[in-house]
């Protein structure tokens, strides 16, 4: 019973965002407040595209989060392979340096990064949006953990058969690491898609901005019609909602890896 009340409390803002998005101004401003629509206002979903360049911003967000995810996957796989399978000098020390970067709060170094990217003339561009996030030690950490579980015999056998490192990585290791790769990808995509501070600083024209910035501008532009704001929010939630509902076990896996670090 307590649980049901808690669940209703937690889900209410979600319900309100989705249901409010099809309410007209009369429903949303009524007193006592109406909690379900008296008439369907699907117009909100059409109008929102005219207030902000939502389609373009959707594309920007997909490109931004997609590029960041792809790049972090590739660089993390390579680095994790080196840490897990290849002997080299200062291996423990270099790994310590990687781990140390995870403790640095991004907000503490956002100003020098802003100066760097705008100094390169990349403010308000897609490269400027993604460059600082193409590499992150989190994926390396999570994948190394998983690579270390790989049976040594199997790897030695492959090496004796003359299998090169890249071939072993691509043909044998990665196909067996799909859950760890998925966990990394889900985590990285979610955090990239949900970014706010950096896109707010580095982009200025509406057609270069991401969805997260766009929906907050709906608030400034259309305070008189909350349904429109909620329609924008609902659209922006579709990819992450799908990931949370269907990719939950990968999120849990990422969390568990995080908690054991």
């Amino acid at each position: 019973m307590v649980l049901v009340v808690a669940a209703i409390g937690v889900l209410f803002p979600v319900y309100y965002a989705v249901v409010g998005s099809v309410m007209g101004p009369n429903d949303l401003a009524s007193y006592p407040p109406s909690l379900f629509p008296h008439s369907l206002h699907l117009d909100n979903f059409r109008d929102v595209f005219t207030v902000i360049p939502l389609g373009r911003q959707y594309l920007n967000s997909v490109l931004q989060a997609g590029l960041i995810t792809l790049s972090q996957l590739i660089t993390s796989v390579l680095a994790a392979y080196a840490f897990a399978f290849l002997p080299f000098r200062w291996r423990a020390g270099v790994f310590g340096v990687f781990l140390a970067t995870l403790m640095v709060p991004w907000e503490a170094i956002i100003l020098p990064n802003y100066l760097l990217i705008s100094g390169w003339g990349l403010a308000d561009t897609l490269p400027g949006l993604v460059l600082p996030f193409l590499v992150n030690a989190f994926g390396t950490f999570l994948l190394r953990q998983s690579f270390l579980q790989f049976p040594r015999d199997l790897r030695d056998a492959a090496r004796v058969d003359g299998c090169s490192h890249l071939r072993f990585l691509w043909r044998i290791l990665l196909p067996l690491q799909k859950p760890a790769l998925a966990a990394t990808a889900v985590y990285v995509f979610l955090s990239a898609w949900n970014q706010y501070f950096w896109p707010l600083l580095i982009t200025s024209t509406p057609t270069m901005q991401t969805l997260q910035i766009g929906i907050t501008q709906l608030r400034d532009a259309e305070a008189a019609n909350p349904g429109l704001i909620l329609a924008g929010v609902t659209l922006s939630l579709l990819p992450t909602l799908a990931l949370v509902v269907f990719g939950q076990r990968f999120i849990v896996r990422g969390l568990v890896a995080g908690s054991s670090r």
Partner: protein
Amino acid sequence: MVSTDLAIASTRAADTVGARRRRRESFIAWLFLLPSLVGLGIFIFYPLVRSLYLSVHGNDIFGGAGAYVGARNYAQMLASSDFRHVLVNTLLFTLLTVVPGVLGALAVVLLLETRVRAIRVFRTAFAIPLAFSAASASVVFAVIYNPAIGVANGLLGQLGIDRIGWLTDPSIALLSVSITTVWMQFGFGVLVLAAGVGGISPEIFEAARLDGATGLRLARSITIPLLGPQLFFLVVVSTIQALQSFGQIHILTRGGPDGATTTLVYSIYQQAFAFGSSNFGLASAQALVLLLIVLACSAVQFGVLERKVHYS
């Protein structure tokens, strides 16, 4: 004679082959690490050094670093009553988000554990806010908090309670932002603790139940102690997340009213970017304070984990 020579020769050959292979593997290792090292160097280590540099320099009119000023930015920061206000806000905001967030998630997980059948549905329900970004959560809460048409005041009105200036009353605003933050991060806590409960072997619960432990007793003497590592992790991570919160403050209150919701991160933003101030020196000094606080939290976490490893 001949056979020992041969043996020596062959070990030497093996040595050189082995050494060559090791050199090759070490070369490949550095090649594989190169992209990561370059990225971390440019976008984390170089900015750290530049932060330090900016914090001991003044500003020219273009926002670039001016003359060397030593510790002046730090002295100015520590002497200002605004900065003390910022630190108090940061501490309050951290307490207001971490304590209810962790206790709430713990309560939910302890209740979940007793209703095994519905567990998946409930866990998904509690995880759904994870899909919300700081921006989307804040925009939805801004509509809910709206003083005139918001559903929060609407429902309170039904109960006969006067309208509350959720975001405009200086004594309420920090609480309102905290509520939004707790809501956003609640699912994370539930997932972490639920994974912890899932990791406890069922025999322990079985044995405790055979001994007649139920409900609160089971939670107090079995589940909560065994969840120690997850609870500790959750407290540290939520604290770090609270210290880094930016979006919900920027969208809901812009640090106001009257500075009531200006936390350390928001103050850095204001010094560097808001009101055309571009005070990069002062902003960098504050950024280093943030860095030190977060590093201290990580160090505590690391230290405790180390000790746990040693004792087990």
